[in-house]
């Protein structure tokens, strides 16, 4: 068990190092690289050379990379070209917004997806099942940014249920402690602020939840259908166990094992989707930061750090999921 963990951790480190090296080398060797980004295309060769030297870009690439890795390990990702602020601060400011959004989306996707998938499987071939199957197919076929605009149009323009964009309403004094606005509101007992933040969160979270929700529903449905055919469910029925017990202990306990892996993989969909969703709802998080750092002049230090962060989060989450698997499935345990 321990050996598996160590091996996976090593693999993770290797993957991240390789990724960072690739991005680092690539970014520095492209036309329109960081120097151009800073100076614009009309700068004289002299200023360009000066800046190149100042930034250390004249040194051999492996030296640059070594220094880069050194700085990264101390948490120094350089400064944003756009604002001049340290990258780590820029990201730190935007992180809670995205985390809050992604968490809300995941809560929706899992909280709605598993019951829906289970019910669809139990009532296979009936109208709820058909509806679910068609709904999830649509969910994975619709570009989510379009869905975002659609929801925004219906719920903010036609019927004014939700605010159109942003994280807080105008005129609400919001005390910022953690950066998670809903949590902040609760901590400071400003419940109107918490409610307002939650209010702003719903539509973006729904939009972002679309794909994970569809995937989790489909996976749960398929998995429950498989389990329903298993002999041990028949044994449980033959024992005369209560419906509740059979559902919880014998069907879901087994059917959710593959769903757990799926949930881990959906972190990817959340990270990708956040970029789109945040743009639709003007949500000042990491996704917006990515969009800002690639459109117009490119903010390479920020972009680089964001890509590494995304890869880190995605890989670590999936590693945790795989490891947790060993604890929830006794067949994987100690071998």
């Amino acid at each position, binding site marked *: 068990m321990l050996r598996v963990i160590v091996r996976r951790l090593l*693999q993770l480190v*290797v*993957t*991240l190092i*390789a*990724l960072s090296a*690739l*991005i680092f080398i*690539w*970014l520095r060797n*492209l*036309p*329109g690289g960081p120097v151009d980004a800073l100076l614009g295309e009309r700068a004289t060769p002299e200023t360009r050379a000066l800046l190149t030297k100042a930034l250390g870009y004249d040194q051999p690439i492996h030296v640059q990379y070594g220094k880069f890795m050194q700085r990264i390990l101390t948490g120094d990702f350089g400064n944003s070209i756009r604002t001049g602020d340290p990258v780590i601060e820029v990201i730190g400011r935007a992180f809670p917004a995205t985390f809050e959004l992604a968490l809300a989306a995941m809560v929706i996707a899992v909280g709605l997806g598993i019951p829906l998938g289970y019910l669809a499987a139990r009532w296979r071939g009936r109208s709820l099942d058909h509806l679910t199957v068609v709904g999830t*197919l*649509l969910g*994975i*076929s*619709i*570009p989510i*940014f*379009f869905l975002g*605009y659609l929801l925004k*149009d219906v719920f903010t*323009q036609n019927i004014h249920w939700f605010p159109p964009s942003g994280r807080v309403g105008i005129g609400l004094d919001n005390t910022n402690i953690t950066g998670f606005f809903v949590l902040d509101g609760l901590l400071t007992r400003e419940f109107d602020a918490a409610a307002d933040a939650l209010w702003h969160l719903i539509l973006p979270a729904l939009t972002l939840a679309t794909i994970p929700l569809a995937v989790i529903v489909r996976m749960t449905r398929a998995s429950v259908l498989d389990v329903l055919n298993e002999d041990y469910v028949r044994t449980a029925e033959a024992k005369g166990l209560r419906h509740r017990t059979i559902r919880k202990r014998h069907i879901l306990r087994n059917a959710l094992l593959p769903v757990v892996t799926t949930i881990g993989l959906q*972190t*990817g*969909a959340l*990270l*990708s*989707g956040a*970029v*789109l969703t945040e*743009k*639709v709802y003007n949500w000042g998080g990491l996704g917006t930061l*990515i*969009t800002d750092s*690639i*459109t117009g002049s*490119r903010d390479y230090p920020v*972009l680089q750090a964001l*890509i590494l962060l*995304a*890869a880190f989060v*995605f*890989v670590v989450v999936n590693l945790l999921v795989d490891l947790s698997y060993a604890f929830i499935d006794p067949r994987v345990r100690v071998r």
Partner: protein
Amino acid sequence: MTEPTTQAGTPAPRRKDERPGGGNLNRLGDRKKARLEELARASSGKGGVSLFRDALRRLRRNPAAIVGATIIGLFVLVAIFAPLIAPHDPVQRFDELTSKLAADNIPGPTDGFPLGSDELGRDLLSRLIYGSRQTLFVGVLATLIGLAIGVLFGAIAGAFGGWVDNILMRVTDVMLALPALLLAITLVALASRSSQWTVIMAVAIVNVPIFARLLRGSMLAQRESDHVLAARALGVKQRSIVLRHMLPNAMTAVIVQATLTLSVAIIEAASLSFLGLGDPDRDRAEWGAMLGDAGVRYFEVRPELAYYPALAIIVVALGFTLLGEAMREAIDPKNRR
């Protein structure tokens, strides 16, 4: 008295002669004959292609597959015959439309322009019809390039194993460490300026590791399988085992994945356009660009600019997904009967 079973042309089972009951036994013989003929029909063509034919038969009975195939068929037909179907040149700006363009107004349906104007005074319907071409082009090319590179990776890894496999798989690990759209964004961002080709290549590369892993997995599974072991035992050369036995079988799964990828590719291309990383050529009509760029930009002025290309994308994506999943179901040995 006749011997009924031999009369039916069966290899008669060992049985004692002289049995009571003449005429009725002929009925038995007829039943046997009918059953045998049925069996013969069912097993005819049981050879190398029978599994494929089997899958095809199951596919034809699946309504989801039929709907999917019909959608794709129509989509391809529209793309091919776009110049014949479209009422106007998709690039031409019409004075009668441009004259009515304003910051808060994009003209809707008028005489000769059934869906109205786009944001530059061009015929929206013609652009949608021509858009099928570019969308098909982007989707198919991105998928094919991704498939080609991925299959090459996967085949090499699967055929050689060992350190080659190890290195190639670590490379895919790195690529898979980034969620799809983020990888595509990164790739486009790495190119100095975006074009239609950066979009195609970005979407293609995102799919490389998926195809590579799929093919490798399938080939590894086959290396241990009976028919490959049998071929090896017969002294068939390694190269021909890989090319003749392992690759064709593994390709079934790859083709299914490619069908599913087509839908993802079209949506990903649209997402890139939405993020401002799409094809900057505004003359070219492509659904993803129409939706992701002008569609959402003018959503409050005239949402139809988004609705139509979005609907087109959803329907086509649905078509590929339906067909792809029906195919996957059809080749799944679990569903074989």
